[in-house]
């Protein structure tokens, strides 16, 4: 029951925060709402008993991405002009709603095989095992991710450094 309440609260807050991000004219506040949204999503992970992910969410999204974005906002000095909506507001709304309806329909009409009881163990070890044991092939993904980060770092440097 407690989880239910937590879910509803978190859900409402996260949706509200997300809406704020896309509706706010003030870009700085939008960024802050994004951070809030990330926080609530971390909370939702907890209700889903994904503790490790919750931590990671806070670290990566809030810590890394959020900060990056705020930096970028300051660098581009766009805050004065704010974050106006474009000409595609109405079509975007329409398409967004239609997509939502479709997804809701899909979710509701699918017969999911659900295991209702909560997983008992904490996830950290399980994740670590899955990642590095080698039996599940996620170590491959891990290695690729390393290359990816390398590419991203090179890219970011190249792009930002002036000639």
């Amino acid at each position, binding site marked *: 029951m407690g989880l239910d309440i937590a879910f509803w609260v978190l859900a409402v807050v996260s949706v509200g925060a997300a809406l704020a991000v896309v509706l706010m004219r003030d870009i700085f506040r939008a960024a802050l709402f994004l951070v809030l949204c990330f926080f609530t999503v971390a909370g939702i992970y907890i209700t889903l008993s994904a503790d490790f992910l919750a931590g990671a969410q806070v670290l990566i999204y809030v810590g890394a991405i959020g900060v990056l974005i705020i930096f970028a906002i300051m660098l581009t000095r766009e805050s004065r002009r704010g974050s106006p909506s474009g000409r595609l507001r109405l079509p975007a709304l329409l398409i967004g709603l239609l997509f939502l309806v479709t997804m809701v*329909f899909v979710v509701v009409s699918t017969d999911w095989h659900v295991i209702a009881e909560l997983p008992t163990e904490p996830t950290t070890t399980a994740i670590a095992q899955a990642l590095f044991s080698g039996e599940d*092939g*996620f170590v*491959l993904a891990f290695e690729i991710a390393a290359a990816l980060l390398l590419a991203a770092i090179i890219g970011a440097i190249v792009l930002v450094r002036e000639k």
Partner: protein
Amino acid sequence: MDLYLLSPVISLLALALVVILLDLFIRRKWILGWVSIIGLIVPVIFTLSLWGRNETSFGGALAVDHFSLFFHLFFLGVAALVLLSSTEYARKFAAFRAEYYALILLAATGMMLLASTRELISIFVALELTGISLYVLTGFLKDPKSSEAGLKYLLLGAVASAVFLYGMALVFGLTGTTYLEGIAAAISAEGLLDSPALLMGIVLLVAGFGFKIAAVPFQMWVPDVYEGAPTPITAYLSVASKAAGFAVILRVFYEALGPASLDWGMIFAVLAAITMTVGNIVAIAQKNIKRMLGYSSIAQAGYLMIGLAAVTTEASSALIFFLACYALTNLGAFIAIIAISNKIDSDEISDYSGMVRRAPLYALALALCLISLTGIPPTAGFMAKIYIFSAGVNAELLWLVIIAVINSVISAYYYLRVVRVMFLGEPVSKEGVHASSGLRIALSLSCLGVLLLGIYPWMLMKFAETAAGIFLP
């Protein structure tokens, strides 16, 4: 877990690192390009040494089979040609040449992995490795056009990633696994065939991959990005990235979704028809040659998708063969464009006027490639079309093939227009065009390939058949 199976990828990755590190120690930067080109021999040798092996590793996440090895060679070859054609172009990047070459190699790494991974997470990460490298490469010039193209590519690419991640999530949620084999097994075992979530998952996957292969209506980034990107990268995008998309689609759809009741072939058929038509018709109206080739590559994606629409082994082998022919042809065209535009510094078709008298060999090579793209013998493009259309006919997709052949006719109009301008127009100036040895080698290789495949395609077809053979039920 046999790391040797991963040796081509690892050696390529190592090559990228070597290039970056070398940058710190040498002064004559042109060496970097040649190092990366010659260094490609190592992964090629590793790949060849693996030929014939049909194994999996990483708990089934990595497959080393004919299909993946074929694509290893394919991407290595494409990367080689792109690198060759960049040797002169890369001077524009001044201090960033090593990064440029390294990113090309990293992208190739990603693509090679895409063709050989059989697990959604690895696929996703490999896809993003390719994607991020290419985003950066697109914006590499850092002039307004290039940055804009890079940004558009990245933002839309990210949206597409989100879309197919959503799709993957649905598939995962239904089947409880991320392994393609497991998905296929779960779908047939648990009777998920009619599940709306699976259908939606497939649709989202189609959309996500459709973005990569530039299928209408997920293609809209293509012309802008092609126009803005550095020309060698445009070539790379148009060939390698598309091929990677097709490779991963073949993998995912045949291995994971093969048993799905949803006739995803039908979706691809309809998309193919729309794609080739839109690509060709809009290409007619283009004045910028890179942009025109962008639309042309959309149209070519349409033809390629016949190979997806016809869900047969023959069709996939035709698709693979078409990819190879298309790669040679399109690269040839872009290399010729690079050579010419290095001199005239313009991508407007009208500036190619009378090019045959300023640079007869380049003009002839470009003409040959355009003719191949049209699908007129004796060129690779013709053989590719014959093969893929025959697969289409055999799969009873007559209507689609008819649309395709009509589209070929339309395409002749704009391809030949370029030929006409080059052969008929008055030259703007008398200045000749001289290109670097790298470009010349790359151009002769691709043109020879185009002609050779047009006259004797059987060797490559056999390769393609072998590669596609792994999808035999």
